[in-house]
């Protein structure tokens, strides 16, 4: 009898360990997609409904949860442009005007299918509450996220997370009406630094205009760069 109990415990333990809590999954997601401080070189290819593709090259720098800076290198039309997030404020710096203008987090990121919040605000643990539901994708957890407050860009998110290494593989983003607005595929999971793996490719599809999608590919990611806070001020734009 005791043997049986021991056996049951032994069998149950790995099962318990394999069932992460929602909080753990969200924290893990935030740690993967938006580490505390990092620098990355990224390209984004935005496919428009007319079939044209525009490719942007940019460099990201992040510090803390709410300090972001983006430099654009190509195409020529946006070369020299910068984006800045500090706290809840977002700006785009236009080099030919030598002026920064405020933008909204809901605006499209460079006219693509990501919005500014998708790129510059990755903090699901703070913005959403979640429940684990049965997944329709094999070998994944399905996190059903619901917005905590009306300030988030989506009302609900379905996040598919791979069981083996807790990497995200698919996201579906919904408006208040319940209609799917965007969907994302996360792929090419790559170990950029020892112990830090993240999807190098994110394809964001516009579910309202099926021909539109934007693909973001990370060429390099450097963690723990810890830039000084002064770099995230308007005065430093263009410098």
């Amino acid at each position, binding site marked *: 009898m005791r043997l049986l109990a021991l056996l049951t415990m032994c069998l149950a333990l790995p099962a318990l360990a394999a069932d992460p809590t929602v909080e753990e999954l969200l924290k893990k997601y935030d740690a993967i997609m938006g580490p505390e401080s990092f620098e990355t070189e990224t390209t984004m290819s935005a496919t428009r409904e007319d079939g044209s593709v525009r490719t942007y090259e940019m460099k990201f720098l992040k510090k803390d949860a709410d300090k972001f800076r983006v430099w654009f290198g190509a195409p020529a039309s946006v070369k020299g442009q910068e984006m800045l997030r500090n706290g809840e404020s977002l700006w785009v710096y236009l080099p030919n005007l030598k002026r920064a203008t405020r933008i909204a987090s809901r605006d499209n990121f460079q006219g693509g299918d990501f919005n500014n919040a998708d790129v510059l605000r990755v903090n699901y643990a703070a913005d959403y509450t979640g429940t684990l539901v049965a997944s329709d994708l094999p070998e994944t957890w399905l996190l059903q996220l619901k917005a905590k407050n009306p300030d988030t860009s*989506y*009302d609900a998110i379905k996040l598919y997370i791979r069981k083996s290494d807790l990497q995200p593989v698919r996201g579906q983003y919904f*408006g*208040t009406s319940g209609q799917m*607005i965007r969907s994302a595929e996360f792929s090419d999971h790559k170990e950029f630094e020892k112990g830090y793996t993240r999807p190098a490719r994110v394809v964001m599809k516009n579910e*309202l*205009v099926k*021909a539109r999608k934007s693909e973001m590919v990370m060429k390099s990611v450097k963690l723990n760069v810890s830039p000084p806070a002064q770099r995230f001020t308007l005065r430093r734009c263009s410098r």
Partner: protein
Amino acid sequence: MSRLPRLAARNVGRNRRRSLITGLAIIVCVGMVVLVKGFIDGVRYLMVADVVEGRAGALQVHQKGFVDNIEAVPTRMNIPYTPELVAKMKAVPGVAGVTGRLMFNGLIGNGVTQTMFIGRGLDLEHEEEACPRSKASVKPGGAPLLPGDTTHVLVGYELGESFAVALGKTVNVQSNSPTGRSNSMDLTVKGFSSSSFPFENKRVITVPLATAQSLLGLQGRVTEYAIRVDDLEQLEEVRRGLQAALGPEYEVHTWQELNTFVRDLINRQDFIMGAIAFVLFVIALTVIGNTMLMSVFERVREIGTLLAVGVRRVQVLQLFVLEAALLGMFGGLAGAAVGQLALRIIASIGIPLELPGTSSVAMLRPYTGWGYTGLAVAVAVIGALIASALPARRASRLNPVEALRNG
């Protein structure tokens, strides 16, 4: 003294041909001024009616700072839409009707492509109280929105054409809450709206207020109130009354302040009107002045006789001025009558007119009030007096002996 007017009248009657020509000139000038004014007032009425009854309402209430604010998201400055607020506004004397609207923007898509739109969320049960002609005319085949049509939309017809969307098909309407929450809905196209403003045909979609509120997550709120007034002449007083009733959190604007384009257009028309009237009056004055001068030359002997029998110089002056005034008055009155008559005849027929900056045809019915007509007559009389001053002075200065010998 009392004999002078009679004498003047007799003089005017005696020189029949001369009086006729002068009178005719004044009739034509005054008649033309009344006619032109009638047309311009008619166009102005059409434009004002289009704006006040068809789109903006006579007055609009927004949250304080809304109109001057160009930076923030407009839907962020939303205000509650409650029966209490409506009742408060309706209690202001001069207010005839109140409705709430939610103006927003977003992207409309047909699954293949998306484009920007300006959305109007209308409280369909009350919209006509404030804007009787606001029910955007719907192209044949479609039907106007009804209060229960929460899943339907009216699309500006040019927007619909550019999209190749058919009646009864669905379009996807995407927008954001003021705080940035994305939302989208599939709505059925119930009709294509056509407006006299091309912009509205190309960019505007109309949905029931409830639909707009749920799309934007703004239940029970609007961005503006539109208000109809009993009398447009009392607009400013009603505005002040509303402002006092609502307090400093709100701002009340007149349609002129909100539609500066139309206001400027009207001002420009008034300026052109003024210039035309001025030219016509200058012509009339020249004709009167000329006639009076001619009559002084022709009647030198008569003036000499008058002076010789003891008529005072000042009385001769008065005589000529009186004659001019009589001519001015009769000519002016007849001109006004002719102008008004012509206006009434034209108005009863109506002129189909394409308004500047619009694409639809409206029926122009020229009209002007008696006030301006009276003013035209008065100006004709005063003008005649001024024009006759010099010739009359010349006549009164004649030397009776010379005048009798030369005449």
